[in-house]
C-alpha cells in the first residue's frame, strides 16, 4: 500500500520558514556589511561626481557611516556622516522573504534573488544620493541658498523623504513580489497558479486506485 503524504499548505510552510530565514538574512548581512558599505558609497560618489562641476565630493565609508567630504570646503569645516546601516539593512528583508519560498536554492530562484538584490542595491545608492544632495541643498547655510534653487531644495527634500521612509520599507517587498509572483500567488491561495506549479515528474492519479 502506498502512503499518502498529507498536502502541504504553502502559506503555512512559508510563514513557518520566515523566522529562520530572517536569522539567516541577518547573518548574511553581517558578513557582507563591510562590502555593502564600500559598494554603496562608491557608486553614489560616482553618480554625484558625474553631475558635479567641479568634481569635489568624496564619500568615505568609516565605521558603517558615509563621511561626506568636499575638497572645496575649509579644512576646519565639520564633516557630516550618514549612517549606512539604515540605508542597506533592508536587504535582510529581501533575503528573508526569498529564502522562505519553496526550493530557494534552485538555479531559477537564485537568479531572481540576484536580480532583485541588484535592483535593491541601486535603490540603496539612490537613497544615499538623495541624503547627500538634501544635505547640500538645505543644511549648509548660505552656501545652500547660493547654489540650490527653492525648486531644487523641494525636489531633493521630497526624494529624500520618499526613498528614506516608504522606499526603504517597501522596495524589498515589491522586488520580492515582482520577481517571484508565480510562487507568491500559490502562497496567497491562487488556485490557477497552484495547478500550474505542481511539481513535474509525479504521475497524476487517473481512474481507479491500485
Amino acid at each position, binding site marked *: 500500500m502506498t502512503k499518502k503524504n498529507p498536502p502541504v499548505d504553502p*502559506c503555512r510552510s*512559508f*510563514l513557518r520558514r*520566515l523566522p529562520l530565514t*530572517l536569522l539567516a*538574512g*541577518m547573518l548574511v*548581512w553581517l558578513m557582507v556589511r563591510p562590502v555593502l558599505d564600500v559598494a554603496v558609497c562608491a557608486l553614489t560618489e560616482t553618480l554625484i561626481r558625474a553631475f558635479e562641476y567641479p568634481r569635489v565630493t568624496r564619500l568615505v565609508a568609516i565605521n558603517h557611516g558615509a563621511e561626506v567630504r568636499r575638497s572645496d570646503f575649509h579644512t576646519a569645516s565639520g564633516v557630516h556622516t550618514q*549612517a549606512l*546601516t*539604515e540605508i542597506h*539593512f*533592508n536587504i*535582510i*528583508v529581501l533575503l*528573508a*522573504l526569498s529564502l522562505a519560498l519553496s526550493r530557494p536554492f534552485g538555479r531559477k530562484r537564485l537568479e531572481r534573488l540576484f536580480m532583485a538584490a541588484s535592483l535593491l542595491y541601486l535603490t540603496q545608492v539612490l537613497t544615499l544620493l538623495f541624503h547627500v544632495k538634501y544635505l547640500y541643498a538645505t543644511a549648509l547655510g548660505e552656501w545652500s541658498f547660493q547654489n540650490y534653487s527653492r525648486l531644487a531644495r523641494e525636489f531633493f527634500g*521630497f526624494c529624500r*523623504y*520618499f526613498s528614506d*521612509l*516608504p522606499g526603504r*520599507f*517597501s522596495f*524589498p*517587498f*515589491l522586488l520580492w*513580489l*515582482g520577481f517571484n*509572483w508565480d510562487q507568491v*500567488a500559490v*502562497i*496567497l*491561495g*491562487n*488556485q490557477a497558479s497552484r495547478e500550474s506549479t505542481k511539481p513535474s515528474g509525479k504521475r497524476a492519479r487517473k*481512474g*481507479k*486506485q491500485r
Partner: protein
Amino acid sequence: MNLKTLWQRPDARFLILFLTILAIGFGVVALKWVNERVVDPYTEVVAQMSAGLLRLFGEEIVVSGCNLSGRFSVTIYNGCNGLITSLIFVSGVLAFPASLRAKLIGFLGGLVAIQLINLVRIISLFFIGVYFPKFFNQSHVVIWQSVIILAGVSLWVLWANRFAAPSQPAKAEGGQ
C-alpha cells in the same frame, strides 16, 4: 506591450494598483497639513499607549508629546509609529482582488495587529535601552525594522490566503 495588455496580467495589475495606492497614501501623509493634524496626534497617542504599558511594568514614565522619559528616554518619530507599515499593508489589501467584506476584515484586523506589534517594539526597545544600551541602535534599526516589515508582509499573506482567496470548486465525482 501596452498598458491594456499589462493590465490583463494579474501580477502586473496588482503591482500597478499597489504602487498607485501606496504613492497616494504616502503623498497624503507627507502633506504638512496632514502631518500636523493627523500624523503628529496619532504618534502622540502611540506614545501615551506605550507609556501606559510601561507603567504596568512598574516604570515611572513622563510623556511629553512623542517623548517618553524614565530610566531611558525614547522619542517616537514618524517611521516608528507603525504608520508606514500600516500604509504598505493597507495598500496591499486594497490592491488585491477580494470582496469588500474581506478587505474590511484585512483593513481593521491588520491595522490593530500592526499597532500591537509596534507597541511590543517600543516597549522592548525601552528595556533594551535600560539594560543593554550598547545594542539599542542595532536593535532599533536592524532587528525591529526588519521584523516589523516582515510582520506586515506576513499579515498580508495570511489575510490573502485565509480571507481573500476564492473558495475551491467541489471536485466532480465519478470514474474512481
